[in-house]
């Protein structure tokens, strides 16, 4: 995406909302208010939000909340959600036990 983003742009003050205590990230138990406050702290990309608050860093890796977080951040910044790039998808797609990840099959054998 890479677009010039001046972080001094005025997005207005943080105004507490009635649903700020709504849980958004189910895994890490992050609320809407925390996400909104993070935007006002300067976290303007979904990647920064994620690194700052841990949204989408829990067991499900953001599969449940990423769209919700995106909507909240977009609204706070006054941009369309489509303009926000989702955080990077990372291996593994599902949680995998260390003992299994460590156990690579012989790549020459007939693997199933």
């Amino acid at each position, binding site marked *: 995406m890479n677009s010039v983003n001046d972080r001094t742009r005025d997005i207005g003050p943080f105004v507490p909302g009635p649903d700020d205590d709504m849980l958004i990230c189910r895994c890490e138990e992050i609320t809407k208010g925390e996400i909104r406050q993070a935007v006002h702290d300067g976290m303007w990309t979904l990647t920064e939000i994620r690194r700052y608050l841990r949204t989408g860093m829990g067991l499900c890796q953001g599969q449940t909340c990423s769209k919700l977080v995106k909507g909240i951040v977009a609204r706070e910044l006054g941009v369309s959600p*489509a303009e926000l790039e989702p955080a990077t998808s990372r291996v593994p797609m599902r949680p995998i036990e260390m003992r299994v990840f460590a156990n*690579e099959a012989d790549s020459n054998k007939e693997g199933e």
Partner: protein
Amino acid sequence: MKRYDLIVVGAGPSGLSAAIEAAKKGLKVVVFDENEKPGGQLFKQIHKFFGSKEHRAKVRGFVIGQQLLDEADEAGVKVVLNATVIGLYQDKEVVVKLGGEVVHYKGDAVIIATGAAENMVTFPGWTLPGVIGAGAAQTMMNLHGVLPGKRVLMLGSGNVGLVVSFQLEQCGCEVVALVDAAPRVGGYGVHAAKVARTGVPFYLSHTIVEAEGDECVTGVTIAEVDSSFKFIPGTEKHFDVDTICLAVGLSPMSQLLKMAGCKMEDNPKRGGQVPISDSYGQTSVPGIFVAGDVSGIEEASSAMIEGRMAGNVAAEYLGYIEKDALKEELDTLDKALDGLRQGMFAPSNRGKLIEKTDEGIEVSQSLLKNGYIADEEIERFPGVVRKVGVHPVIECTQNIPCNPCQDACKKGCISIGKNITSLPIVVDGSECINCGMCVANCSGQAIFLVDEDKGDGSAEITLPYEFLPLPEEGTKGFGLGRDGKVVCEAVVTKCRSSKAFDKTHLLTIKVPKEYAMKARFFKVS
């Protein structure tokens, strides 16, 4: 490293279709799926599909799933289950978790057909046990035979919300309300109508205020919303429920593609983050293709065609077929896909308010607001005619891509014509023999056989019935209107079952003749 011509990720409708097509062209194909059972969502779809013959219309989803599996087997496709693809690395390296080990594979081509994930919506209490996704309800009841709950509130009136509501009732749950914040029903009118006539109240322009309960859901409050989706005070309604089911749309599950470095875009028309691809699934990375919901949310029927397209394109990419042969295949598939993308629910019409059918008939506003067609609206549609003797009454009122009814009638009573989305009409001068094939074959359960005047002051109505227990002949009860409310007393005069009906039973009820055009469901007293 172990190498295949083609690695397909996801054994749903699109993945299997792609694999079959490619294997038929000579490619060595493997399909990985993380689930214990193949078929993706097909095995949870127990309703009859729409479309025409080429789209496997009037066949139930799980049967299509089995058909695809058999075809895949016949074509020599290797389907590996319980196989979680944990990553798609550079150089088309697919790493799969299989039992207690990870295996690295290379594909000369890779087709990603990972489908979609459910969207969620928040409200106080949305994390309580008992608040579940609609997909979870389907999984519990249709795969594992466990009731998702006893009293359920469904949020979402798209096809998923409607279909799952009906499925919940089929397995014995009570759906206490179907709620949607939108002002109009989002899914097919026929799906809505079959839910509404069983007595499920629809609350459009409503949404959930709060789910109640300490340890799990014990109740829910909904309220009406205004045009900017704000609650209107004083409109709250409370229901005692143990389950709240969320069916608020799907998003493409495209993480693997992003991981592989495919260029992505956020495309609201396709349901979210999707790879940038041409109309046959080629992404920005040569040799990586997509098919099905992962490239844009649609129906299983279109996913199957997209899969076949991608399978053929992969075959040409690897030199198993020539460009000419590919073009021929794609021309046919383009036509089939075009057929499905017509009508009011076409992707190009998403979000548009359609007031008239292609035939110029005003769409039923009651259907959109309440889930059923009002009595005073029904007779303006061409499938609904009054006649002497038994005749079909076709309550199909929206332009959807579906035509099994016209093939079902051997006597030529029903016609849709060339355009698959046209409204069915009862052919003038045709003679109904009361065989019931049209009733059983209508995927929307929108056809009834009516004898308006039996001569003794009564009328007989034959309706599709997919519930247990089946009422026996002589069972007394009530006729319910399209709105699910009791309109008259009724008695069962016949209950027909047949292999050709494919588990849609034909219940014939006798009602006072003034209710011939009003009673559309039967409830035992």
